[in-house]
């Protein structure tokens, strides 16, 4: 029996694969101990999947995977407002990453670093809105630093993954 060369089916399969992977990485990251007393400091492993999707699929594929991932994780591991934080962080960092990616002036590390920092910026902004306090602004330097470091790591990793994947998924 032979399957027809079904492009749509292929895409659905890749969506499923990527979302499952992002989902598992989100879970993995929730198992990691919290290193610091600053809320929002994290590795951002799921950004690996988003970056690879951005480089090897189309922009809207990556956006779709990212949004479904955020909703799924919010429904399972999240508690109420954590969903709002991750949605704000996820969407804003995605927009920034797409701009840098499209500019063609940055490699995966630059795109990833901008995404990490943008993610933390958006989360702090939402937290300040919800809690109506400026005190959180004092976490910004730490969050810029952690976003940059995590971004470099994830950027290098995703660059290596993209290099080893076939040209068109």
């Amino acid at each position, binding site marked *: 029996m032979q399957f027809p060369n079904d492009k749509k089916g292929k895409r659905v399969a890749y969506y499923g694969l990527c979302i499952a992977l992002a989902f598992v990485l989100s879970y993995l990251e929730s198992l990691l101990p919290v290193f610091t007393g600053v*809320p929002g400091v994290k590795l951002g492993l799921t950004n690996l999947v988003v970056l690879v999707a951005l480089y090897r699929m189309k922009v809207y594929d990556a956006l779709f995977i990212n949004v479904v991932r955020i909703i799924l994780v919010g429904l399972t591991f999240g*508690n109420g407002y954590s969903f709002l934080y991750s949605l704000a962080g996820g969407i804003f960092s995605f927009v920034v990453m797409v701009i840098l990616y499209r500019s063609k*002036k940055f490699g995966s590390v630059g795109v990833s*670093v901008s995404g990490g920092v943008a993610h933390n910026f958006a989360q702090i902004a939402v937290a300040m809105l919800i809690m109506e306090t400026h005190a*959180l602004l004092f976490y*910004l330097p730490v969050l*810029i630093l952690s976003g940059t470091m995590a971004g470099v790591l994830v950027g290098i990793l995703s*660059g290596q993954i993209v290099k080893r994947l076939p040209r068109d998924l």
Partner: protein
Amino acid sequence: MIKRNDILLAALFLILAAAGFFIIQSFVKEGSYVRVTVDGALQGVYPLDAEGTYTIKGYDGGYNTMVISNGQVSFSEADCPDGLCVKMGQKSQVNESIVCLPHRVVAEVCEADEKAEFDAVSK
């Protein structure tokens, strides 16, 4: 994979972070009061020079236990899943804060002369 612009961008962020640290450091002062808000509303102002343990009711019915001891404030217990506020440790300097995102509790250290202003706001 790594372009020159990537390194420049990362360096820029690191400089920004360092500048931020320095700016914050220059504002550091020992505080004398802790101002606690829940969901943006003032819940109470507690003096740092009086020892005490307080239970703060959070936005969703959860609680945080705040301890003031030796002029420092810390959270010793909370019924939220991550317990981040407990891990934040002790704070005593002006504008330092302990935050509990799930319960929307912010405990912020402030200066003596700010107390009057906060009392006015709480009315």
